[in-house]
């Protein structure tokens, strides 16, 4: 049936999730089952489906459009998913987490994210948003015996539900103006009618903006991020910080840069202030952190700010820059959190900076991998992070947004300070005698190695991927 083609990737992932849950229920106590493997098969299948759907621009039920844009995001999500699943097995064993539930939640969340990127109807965006978020809330608190973890989970949950309500209210007002929730209808209505710029429109746009700003952790809706990232198991944090952002930015781009595009003048100023505040707060407050996960959370906030610059630029380069940035950021961040996760042990699950002291002497390979990821986060050539930042700021310069670009690069320099702090700890202090950091397993090494290699590849030979990103946006706008 033609109708199902566009949702093939999501269907495959959902089936894999259901299969995982089913397999878990058949598992005998203490029997070891490769549940992660099911997830990997599902994700690879989804990637294959996405490749087959490339350039076909299929639509399902009128509300899901698997255009190249959505498929690019699918690839990013599959990459994040595979990396997360591979890194999770060690954590699950160590912390005795419920494996079946864990993997199926990850997969459900990815299905929600894929749907969110491909949805062309506000109702579906809301549904996908909720599917993704609910799964992630549970994943945050999956370490049930950990007080900080459950605290993080409910903080995330409360603020998340709160912002979903705002988002929904915005959708309701949009429905009020446009009499439909389809994005094409919104675009037509907003472009066509002249009486549309009134208090209702302002409310609608504002509320939608609040909803999205929360999900991407933009200031001043970022308060949940440090706690949620710190309390969640570190692999989950890596998954959250990259996957949720990718899906949220995809929907953000679709809603604001295609439907509400004619109203740009209204929302661009507000968004600029938000972006500036995000970049500044993310960098400045990050400097003061002593816990690695919190620090990386603030770095996440800063990166959300850079991505917002891409939306503000709003031109073709800006959109493809966002896609490239999401990919580069996803690989880098999962890598950074992955190393942190593999360094933690039963006794020291917190991820303090002290875990990294003298890592070069005891675990040089891990130190090198972490350095690569940190340099990419800081935007040093020849890594993916540099090309991504260059791309986004180039788009801003194209639109004469020099102020934003300058703030962006200067905050980048400040952020280098706290990335380097970890490097200093790893290389320039002596290792702690009483603490022996865990060794890298073969899977861990392979996963992180591939991530690091891709970071270099994107940094040195980005032409292919940039071209892909550029062609991905042609289909929607």
């Amino acid at each position, binding site marked *: 049936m033609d109708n199902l083609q566009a949702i093939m990737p999501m269907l495959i992932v959902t089936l894999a999730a259901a299969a995982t849950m089913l397999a878990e229920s058949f598992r005998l106590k203490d029997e070891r089952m490769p549940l992660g493997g099911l997830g990997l098969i599902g994700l690879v299948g989804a990637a294959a489906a996405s490749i087959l759907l490339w350039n076909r621009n299929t639509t399902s039920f009128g509300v899901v459009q698997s255009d190249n844009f959505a498929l690019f995001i699918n690839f990013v999500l599959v990459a994040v998913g595979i990396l997360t699943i591979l890194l999770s097995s060690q954590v699950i064993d160590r912390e005795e987490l419920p494996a079946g539930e864990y993997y199926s939640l990850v997969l459900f969340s990815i299905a929600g994210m894929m749907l969110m990127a491909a949805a062309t109807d506000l*109702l579906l965006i*809301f*549904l996908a948003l*909720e599917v993704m978020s*609910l799964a992630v*809330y*549970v994943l945050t*608190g999956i370490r*049930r*015996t*950990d*007080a*900080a973890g*459950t*605290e*993080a*989970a*409910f*903080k995330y*949950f*409360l603020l998340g*539900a*709160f912002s*979903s*309500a705002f988002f*929904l*209210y915005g*959708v*309701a*007002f949009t*429905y*009020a103006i446009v*009499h*439909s*929730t389809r994005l094409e209808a919104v675009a037509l209505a907003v472009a066509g009618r002249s009486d549309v710029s009134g208090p209702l429109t302002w409310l609608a746009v504002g509320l939608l903006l609040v909803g999205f700003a929360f999900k991407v952790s933009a200031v001043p809706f970022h*308060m949940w991020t*440090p*706690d949620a990232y*710190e*309390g969640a198991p570190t692999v989950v944090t890596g998954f959250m910080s990259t996957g949720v952002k990718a899906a949220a930015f995809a929907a953000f781009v679709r809603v604001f840069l295609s439907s509400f595009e004619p109203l740009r003048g209204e929302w661009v100023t507000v968004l600029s202030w938000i972006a500036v505040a995000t970049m500044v707060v993310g960098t400045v407050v990050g400097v003061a952190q002593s816990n690695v996960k919190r620090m990386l959370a603030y770095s996440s906030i800063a990166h959300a700010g850079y991505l917002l610059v891409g939306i503000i630029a709003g031109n073709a380069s800006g959109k493809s820059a966002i896609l490239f940035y999401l990919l580069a950021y996803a690989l880098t961040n999962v890598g950074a959190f992955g190393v942190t996760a593999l360094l933690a042990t039963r006794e020291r699950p917190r991820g303090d900076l002290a875990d990294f002291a003298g890592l070069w002497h005891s675990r040089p390979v891990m130190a090198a991998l972490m350095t690569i990821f940190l340099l990419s986060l800081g935007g040093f050539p020849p890594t993916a992070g540099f090309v991504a930042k260059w791309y986004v700021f180039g788009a801003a310069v194209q639109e004469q947004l020099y102020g934003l670009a300058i703030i962006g690069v200067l905050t980048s320099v400040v952020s280098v300070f706290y990335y380097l702090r970890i490097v200093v700890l790893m290389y320039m202090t002596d290792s702690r005698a009483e603490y022996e950091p865990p060794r890298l397993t073969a899977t861990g090494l392979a996963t992180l190695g591939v991530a690091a290699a891709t970071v270099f590849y994107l940094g040195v030979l980005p032409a292919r991927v940039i071209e892909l990103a550029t062609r991905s946006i042609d289909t929607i706008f």
Partner: protein
Amino acid sequence: MTPITPAHYLVLSAALFSIGLIGVLVRRNLIVIFMSIELMLNAVNINLVAFSQQWQHVVGQVFALFVVAVAAAEAAIGLGIILAFYRNKETVNVDEITLMRW
């Protein structure tokens, strides 16, 4: 008697939304905060149904049903998380949460 116009529904839903909003910001008990969030979601439902009625359009009502389903799922998960938290900390009072600073 003045006819009930959609404006009335808008005002009602705005009022409910504000009550919920204030509830989230002001109340101390986790369960009550969560109730307030549910109140906000239902306020939006009223809004959707009102507009659906105004133009004899069914999408709004369908959307409202979806929201109800989602809210139910959210309630299940939310209460589960609150319960897990309670098992660890023996409190549902927001003031006593000091494990992680802002």
